[in-house]
């Protein structure tokens, strides 16, 4: 049996029992305050700009080149509507290098402002049973090698059933390109209806993080 008297015991034990609850809250609060400064650093570096953004292209190295954005003027080279009725142009582009067509984009229907992510996978129902896709298959871009005197041509068209209408034929001096997005504006004339292009250049040996950074639409 206990020999303790009632005099020794706390008068309001239920009240003093809040001590552990206070300790829990204090410990949690203190930890929170001490560590909250680190919460924004996720340490994966994905939000940082890749180190090679804006770098010049290196001679002899291979690159992915694609138009991530093309904007056309509201009328075609003849100053007329792109399509009969209210339909906008169905934009597509080709890339030529050393006189050879090396890439053709998909068509973006009824749009004056077309975007391409540089990534596309065509899956059929039968592929659901099992298909292996390599990054090279999925990346929709021209592959070319850089040299100081090199250039490529970007032929932009309004895709039509009968005959594709030319929107512009742009010659891009490779020397003027930088790794990443290269934006340019163009004046309208009888040969050109392209208002603006954004050409993306990525080294073929880019890390997956760099590709991820650039290829998101």
């Amino acid at each position: 049996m206990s020999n303790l008297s009632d005099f020794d015991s706390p008068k309001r034990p239920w009240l003093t029992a809040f001590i552990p609850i206070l300790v829990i809250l204090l410990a949690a609060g203190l930890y929170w305050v001490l560590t909250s400064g680190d919460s924004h650093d996720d340490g994966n570096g994905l939000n940082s700009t890749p180190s090679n953004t804006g770098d010049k292209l290196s001679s002899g190295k291979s690159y992915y080149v694609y138009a991530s954005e093309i904007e056309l003027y509201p009328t075609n080279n003849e100053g007329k509507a792109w399509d009969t009725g209210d339909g906008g142009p169905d934009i597509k582009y080709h890339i030529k290098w050393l006189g050879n067509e090396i890439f053709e984009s998909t068509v973006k229907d009824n749009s004056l402002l077309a975007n391409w992510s540089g990534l596309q996978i065509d899956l059929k129902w039968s592929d659901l049973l099992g298909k292996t896709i390599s990054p090279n298959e999925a990346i929709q871009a021209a592959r070319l090698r850089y040299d100081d005197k090199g250039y490529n041509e970007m032929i932009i068209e309004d895709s039509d059933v009968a005959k594709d209408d030319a929107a512009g034929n742009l010659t891009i001096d490779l020397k003027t390109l930088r790794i990443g997005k290269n934006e340019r504006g163009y004046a309208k004339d009888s040969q050109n209806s392209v208002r603006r292009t954004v050409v993306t250049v990525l080294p073929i040996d880019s890390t997956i993080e760099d590709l991820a950074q650039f290829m998101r639409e």
Partner: protein
Amino acid sequence: MTKLLILASSVLLGIGLVAPTMTIHPKAGEFSWLVEIIDPQSMVPITYSIIGIIIELAQIKDWFLVAVLSIFSILFPISKLYIFWVAASDQNNKGKFLTIYKVINKLGKFSMAEVFVLSLLLISLKTLPGGTEVNLEFGCMIYFLSVIFSILSSFQIKKSDDRIVQ
């Protein structure tokens, strides 16, 4: 001694609730590289605390899991420490002691309930497809230490209770 154990358990519980408990490393199997390109944010490893998990579940309105985790990971351990403190403070009133003794006996059966809930959660995440990995962080160890300290304090209280009840 008992109160020291309860206080230690309280400090560890407080830290264990807000410290990183687990890190999920998302993977999408063969298509991991593709998801990294299309949606890199979804492939970033995420670290959760127990409170963080509950907040996340509340945001997706999974109220059942919010309730289960809140009860077994927060409310139950806090209530247990509260009762233990009362028991450790009020050892003179025999009538009250018998009640507390019964409560502690019942609580003892659930003393590993929170560990069980966490284990279930980990197992469910471990079986996610695509090779997604879950790594335990130090917060989990602190939380488990808190549970162990509370078990030790319950033993101490039971020992005192048994002496008084006899």
